[in-house]
């Protein structure tokens, strides 16, 4: 069980960085559209 719980916490930590990366990609996309527009 301990191993599974540690994996859960690792997933939650990684999720923060993944969400941040997605936000940055979308922000870059919006800026690109705005600049091209």
């Amino acid at each position, binding site marked *: 069980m301990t191993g599974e719980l540690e994996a859960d916490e690792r997933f939650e930590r990684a999720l923060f960085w993944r969400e941040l990366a997605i936000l940055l990609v*979308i922000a870059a996309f919006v800026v690109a559209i705005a600049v091209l527009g």
Partner: protein
Amino acid sequence: MRDAIEWALTIVVLLGALPLVAGCYQFGLAGLHRFRRRTSGALDGEPRVAVVIPAWNEAAVIGRTIDRLVGLDYPAERLRVYVVDDASTDVTPDVVRAKAGEHPGRVFHLRREVGGQGKAHTLNHGLRQIRAEGWFEAVLITDADVIFTALSLRRMTRHLGDATVGAVTAYIKEGSRPSNALNRFVAFEYISAQAGARRAQNVLGAQACLAGGAQLLRRESLEAIGGLIDTSSLAEDTFTTFDVQLAGWRVVFEPHAIVWAEEPRDMAGLWKQRLRWGRGNVQVTMHYRRNWLRGRRIGRLGGASFALIWFSVLLMPLLMTAASAALVILYVLDREASIDAFRGLWALNLVTYLFITLSSFALDPEAARRSWREAIMFPGAISLAIIVVAAVPGLADDLPDALLLFTYVWLSASMLAAYLVRRLEATRCGWAARPLLYLVGYGPLLCAITAAAYLQEVRGREMAWEKTQKTGAVGDLA
């Protein structure tokens, strides 16, 4: 005067983006889940858990569900399963009695000789019995078709180590195998509605709903709400969730406690199930009308963030229809202004679509990979085409007037189209319904059901607990 009207109409159009803003807000919060997640706390061993399963003619699924529950990675002497048989007319009683014989002292068959009053009454029959026995420290309310993964209950109960937690819910995933297109749409919907939204609600400190198939209640919190489940509505799980929180307890979502459930395989079944949920949500909104936006006096349920999340879903059909009408009126008054408002609304739509779709792959890579086509097509091909028109500079300006008006009307007409697709499914041309669903979109179908729920509530149509038919289609997924 004309300027004021145009501004007012533009605001109405942009209010149509409220659900999109709320969607982005929730997925943004979901990313912060690690900072609010509390899993520490002292448990003096696992609590004694009484599992309550309401069952009416569940012979196809109940035996396997019991087997999976007694086989959970949980101390056998601390887990009992009570099947409340709601006067079943099939072989459900025989199946349950056989399981009780296989697992003496662990599986119990509780029979209601007169049934048909609905799930809440059935649950209460079981709760009365369990409370009278007094053995339990926590109760797990589930459904006859729900399959718990081996460690899911342990993952849920450990939150009870925190003395402020009154109830815990799990991540219910669509488990039909082989899955059809509708199952995959539901699978993707559940990533956003559960893995995303409920993480966000953990961060906010207020949960909208304990998933009906996985409600773990601490004994004290059950007693605090009167020891029984609300029977006055079609949303007994949401009533429980609100009541527990209003009694001062926290309700927590555990995203890694995964349970599998069988969801409807056709639009008629989905419509019936979601209409019940939609009407239940309208009833909850009215019942707790004095609690909305009341601030911290009543805990996080009274916060503006929670209200934004709740009402953006509930009011989506109204907001979409109002935005659609405002765009058409704006077009009559000032074509250019209407195009600007249209582009603003659909630009937000694009950002939301990208954010939620990509986030879903981060939240549940397994389910997202399995339903990636449905993830992309969730808004429908027509809405995706409109997003492109709005996003590409100059395209909207060059559209013929008829097409431009169509894009304005589509915001609300998509719900009507989804309703017609659902009706088509029941005809000789039913084969065309699934491809048309990809064209019209699953999102508009959900909005159409919410709109239908309003109408039924306004008309005061009699509430009937219409059970979703289960066939035992959940695959071997533990």
